[in-house]
């Protein structure tokens, strides 16, 4: 019990630093450092800080993070979104709310080459938002479909948060990737179904146009335009699925192919590439500093034995696993409305992961649940990152419209978690089919 108490005290100190406005990475490092000095003394404590910083920063598994961020940035600045959105709109434009459905599907396809929800929302949003506004679509529907569609970027592989989850918990990133595919497709379909239903109830909010009535020849030609993207997806995901490459190597292949593609279609300029450089460094540095200093913190939590104590406490309560899970998820939903989720995931994993797997839940399955939770957090006000992305892309948009438009999609994400709880095979079936060498 005293271990659990000490852990809770450190967590309280951490949240104190957070609320003072100290950088999240520094808060984690400072609390971790204080804990180490207290438990291990000056010499050993400082030695741990040095070795943790080096081993995390130089880990080859984490190299996939800058590579996938770079790949998304290249594709964003090469304007890949344009041909992709046009092609998808030609095929599904006939549906009620067709342009919004096309946004979601274009996001889902782009998600298969992008590991970030921000890049996905920005790439497709830049093209789709003006298109839908011109047509007179209801603003909350426009913004909501893009903010939510963008979050598919981290559920459909590749996915930067999955790399972080996988490396931190020693779960296979390749298996996590495969586990995200079917839930990702289902989620895209659920989003589309909601949009179609909405457009049927309020037809005036999603006026119909001419897309989808294009002749078959034109539709087929649009497929040729997006063929390079399809090739990129096949290479990046296929090479991993068949166990030819590790996730980091797949990311490197993806970067090389994206560069080749961007140069071939002639849309990548030198200033664009430099912008992609800086974006990559900024995102990588932000995420990795949090990971590095969080691992000092989690080292302390592990030394204290907090996860084990917590597991003992929870099993002592004799609650059914589903009750514990609902409790945890309920708290997580509240957190999603308050804090920046990726940092929270990094901080909470060392405590949550042993607890949840100790109760008998599958580590890969829990990884997918955490990703869906992140998606939820990305579109919940006041700090959902995708809401800010849409605000940046859509001129003249209000945060209110964006948040209102995103809310139904939050409910769909909660529904997906419920489905995953009752049908865990939705996530776990595909990883089981992988080539043995790639697991």
């Amino acid at each position, binding site marked *: 019990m005293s271990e659990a108490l000490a852990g809770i005290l450190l967590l309280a100190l951490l949240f104190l630093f957070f609320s003072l*406005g100290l950088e999240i990475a520094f808060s984690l490092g400072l609390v971790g450092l204080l804990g180490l000095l207290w438990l291990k003394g000056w010499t050993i404590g400082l030695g741990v800080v040095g070795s943790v910083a080096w081993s995390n920063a130089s880990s080859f598994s984490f190299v996939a993070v800058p590579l996938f961020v770079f790949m998304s940035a290249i594709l964003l600045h090469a304007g890949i979104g344009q041909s992709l959105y046009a092609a998808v709109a030609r095929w599904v434009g006939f549906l009620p709310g067709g342009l919004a459905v096309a946004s979601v599907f274009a996001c889902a396809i782009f998600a298969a080459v992008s590991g970030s929800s921000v890049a996905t929302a920005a790439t497709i949003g830049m093209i789709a938002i003006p298109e839908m506004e011109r047509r007179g679509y209801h603003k909350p529907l426009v913004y909501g479909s893009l903010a939510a569609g963008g979050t598919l970027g981290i559920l459909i592989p590749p996915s930067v948060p999955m790399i972080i989850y996988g490396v931190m918990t020693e779960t296979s990133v390749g298996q996590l990737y495969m586990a995200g595919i079917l839930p990702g497709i289902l989620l895209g379909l659920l989003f589309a179904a909601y949009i179609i239903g909405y457009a049927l109830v309020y037809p005036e909010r999603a006026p119909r146009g001419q897309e989808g009535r294009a002749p078959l020849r034109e539709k087929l030609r649009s497929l040729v335009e997006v063929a390079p993207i399809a090739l990129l997806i096949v290479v990046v995901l296929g090479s991993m699925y068949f166990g030819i*490459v590790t996730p980091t190597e797949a990311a490197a292949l993806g970067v090389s192919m994206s560069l080749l593609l961007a140069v071939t279609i002639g849309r990548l300029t030198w200033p664009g590439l430099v912008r992609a450089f800086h974006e*990559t460094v900024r995102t990588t540095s932000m995420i990795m500093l949090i990971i590095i200093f969080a691992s000092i913190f989690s080292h302390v939590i592990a030394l204290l034995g907090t996860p084990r104590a917590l597991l003992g406490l929870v099993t002592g309560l004799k609650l059914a696993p589903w009750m514990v899970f609902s409790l945890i998820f309920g708290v997580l939903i509240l957190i999603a409305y308050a804090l920046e989720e990726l940092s929270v995931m990094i901080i909470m994993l060392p405590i949550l992961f042993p607890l949840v797997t100790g109760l008998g839940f599958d580590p890969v399955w829990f990884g997918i649940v955490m990703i869906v939770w992140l998606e939820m957090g990305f579109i919940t006000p006041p700090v959902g990152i995708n809401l800010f992305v849409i605000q940046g892309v859509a001129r003249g948009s209000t945060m209110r419209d964006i948040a209102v438009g995103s809310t139904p999609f939050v409910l769909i994400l909660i529904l997906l978690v419920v489905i995953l709880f009752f049908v865990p095979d939705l996530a776990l079936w595909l990883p089981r089919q992988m080539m043995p060498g790639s697991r």
Partner: protein
Amino acid sequence: MIGRTSKAASFLGGLATLFIAGATTSDVLLRYFVNRPLLGVDEVAGFLQVLVVFWGCAYTFQQGGHIRVDLVTSHLPGPVRAWLRVVTLLLGLAFLGVVCWVTTQSALTAYRYQRVSVVMLFVLWPAMLLIPTGLALMAVAMLATLRRQLRAALGPRAGREEVGGERPAA
């Protein structure tokens, strides 16, 4: 000056990422098609990632990229926020100072014992020195912000606010 240096360091980080991608791709292609892998690519990639992370953190700081929570502070009056930022900058600088010192010591120890990497036996200390140098650059950028923040906190009442340059994102 600080801005230009940190931007140049970030640019180097971008180049390093490009190099990692190229080298790893070559390794995969050579291994798959002619069964001749490039040994040591993963080790070099790891070293270069240290450069991306730590030489990039000063620029990231200046761009407001290191996430902070403003849920509480955004409800406080401007002057309080100005002084609170002075406190958090000092806390951050103290922490950076300790980490800089520790990682410099680690690099010096690695130099003294000529520590090498596992596969290719590369000497480790140059890559290890990337950590304290990058963090020192970030500390300089934070000191510049601290100076501006102190001026704002001590200056005319209307200007007592958290200074810009870094955006509390979340």
